[in-house]
């Protein structure tokens, strides 16, 4: 199982090696030592491999990930798992702003807190944050789910499309066109699945969450809604 020390070899060598993996590779578990906040670690992967990053990652760690399972043992910088298509990304610590931005699929789990704009413009990803998320999270979120076990900052779900937001804690305020919605069985089942994917099945009660979604009043531009922007 390859171990890659970023103090001894450049990032390009790591990403190049991960991109070059053959479909039938038996090198399915990679360990990255001394990431030291380097940007773009393990981005653009497209293979069913696991990568464990033993420390803090900088910007865009696991960006555009497909199929790979990536663990950041420390904190992650801006845009972790941005535009992820599939696979699984977990951050043991905190994540900076724009975690999971525009991601189309896969699962992003953040064990700590996430900064501002978590899930901005998300397009199908499932994001679960065990701590709290910052302001403007799920801004213009189009599809997927954002589950927050802690609190959500100001303007949650501003200009939301069809993404579904589940928050267990306090919501400072809702953004334009974001409203609280009834938690039906289908949503409890979905939330249960999201908790299960994060390894929290049985530990967290889906009944403690509130659901938020789009009021859909801004779907068609009309002068009567101009004040909402």
């Amino acid at each position: 199982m390859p171990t890659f020390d970023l103090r001894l070899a450049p990032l390009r060598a790591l990403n190049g090696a991960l991109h070059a993996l053959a479909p039938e590779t038996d090198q399915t578990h990679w360990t990255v030592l001394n990431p030291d906040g380097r940007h773009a670690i393990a981005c653009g992967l497209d293979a069913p491999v696991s990568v464990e990053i033993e420390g803090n990652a900088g910007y865009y760690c696991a960006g555009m990930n497909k199929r790979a399972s990536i663990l950041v043992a420390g904190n992650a910088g801006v845009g972790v798992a941005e535009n992820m298509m599939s696979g699984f990304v977990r951050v043991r610590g905190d994540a900076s702003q724009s975690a999971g931005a525009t991601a189309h699929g896969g699962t992003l789990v953040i064990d700590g807190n996430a900064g501002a704009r978590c899930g901005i413009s998300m397009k199908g990803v499932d994001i679960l944050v065990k701590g709290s998320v910052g302001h403007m999270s799920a801004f213009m979120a189009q599809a997927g789910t954002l589950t927050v076990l802690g609190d959500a900052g100001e303007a949650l779900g501003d200009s939301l499309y069809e993404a579904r937001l589940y928050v267990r804690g306090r919501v400072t305020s809702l953004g334009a066109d974001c409203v609280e919605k009834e938690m039906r069985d289908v949503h409890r089942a979905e939330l249960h699945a999201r908790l299960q994917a994060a390894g929290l099945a049985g530990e967290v009660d889906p009944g403690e969450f509130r659901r938020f979604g789009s009021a859909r009043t801004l779907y068609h531009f009309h002068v009567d809604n101009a004040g909402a922007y």
Partner: protein
Amino acid sequence: MAEHPEAPRTSPRLSATFTPEVMSEIRRAAATGIYDIRGAGAKRSLPHFDDLLFLGASISRYPLEGYRERCGTEVVLGTRFAAKPIHLKTPVTIAGMSFGSLSANAKEALGRGATLAGTSTTTGDGGMTPEERGHSKTLVYQYLPSRYGMNPDDLRKADAIEVVIGQGAKPGGGGMLLGQKITERVAGMRCLPPGIDQRSACRHPDWTGPDDLAIKIEELREITDWQKPIYVKVGASRPYYDTALAAKAGADVVVLDGMQGGTAATQDVFIEHVGIPTLAAIRPAVQALQDLGLHRAVQLVVSGGIRSGADVAKVLALGADAVAIGTAALIALGDNDPRWQSEYEALGTTAGAYDDWHEGKDPAGITTQDPVLAARLDPELAGRRLANFLAVMTLEAQTIARACGKSHLHNLEPEDLAALTIEAAAMAGVPLAGTGWIPGKTGL
């Protein structure tokens, strides 16, 4: 009047301030309560390339023979960092226009025409279609704030990546695609519900300033294994600083779009009042690259109101490496063609003035998703027309370059130009014709 019944009456006098167009807009705004949204670029009269002239060769310089001596037109973009720069036969490229704002047939026609001419075409907001990729030998993939349709597979299929910060029609603004054009296919590519009015963000979701941009470019290079040239596109507003910052952030190519550059849809007030003319933007951008020692190492592509080979030659003479055309390409395909005059009139407009591209009712079948209208555009024939137009532009630019004694279009230089107006002389940094005066730089 009663004392002088036969005295001539004062002629009715229209206001130069409250023109018929201004009054019409006031009445429209008063009736609707909403600003006007339209396509295309600035329509107001602006200092432009028509205000420049070439100084043909004479005794001090000698020309090249028009039909015998070679005048090169090829251009290579992305030589700074990319392992696979783009090689084009002509410096006239096709600007970014989305499937969604344009029909699939129109996108295919752009690809066919560009490929025949040996140049590149560019995706737009909404992602890459298989037809577009299939018909474009060289395709630039735009990386936009909305990231609609963005995925790493298409990123790797592209020949270059264009990080779009802004565009000339609306620097600082996002876009809007009205529900009429959000068909099932367009909606599916953008992960949106069909039929809604789609808003496009004005800022990228995961970076803000130029330092972040450098990190974003590094990520895109890592994902594509440093193979693809990375362009950065800016709307012309502060071209010196934007070009310098884009180059510092690691761009291979800077694309600079002036306010005459078109858009699929935005507010008229934005199009006409934000940004600066293309003519005024080029010299500051070139100066920025020269100050950094990167002129020609980072290529400069200029767009916004480029219509002819003369415009191409002038842009290159001012220091750019290539141009991009959008509106002119659509006209070559058949946009605003008088053959559809009766239908333009039914829409309350006339051929040559139709700019409600966002409504999806284009009689020419180009800016629409209506299958009946879109079927009017034969992509093969339209592509042929575009290829012809690109060939003419290139030939025209060569004609001028030879007359100036240049064996390659890139050998054109500011010293080959004179300005017709003081404004153009100041903006382009070339002397007023018949003088040695460059306003702000030299005496008479």
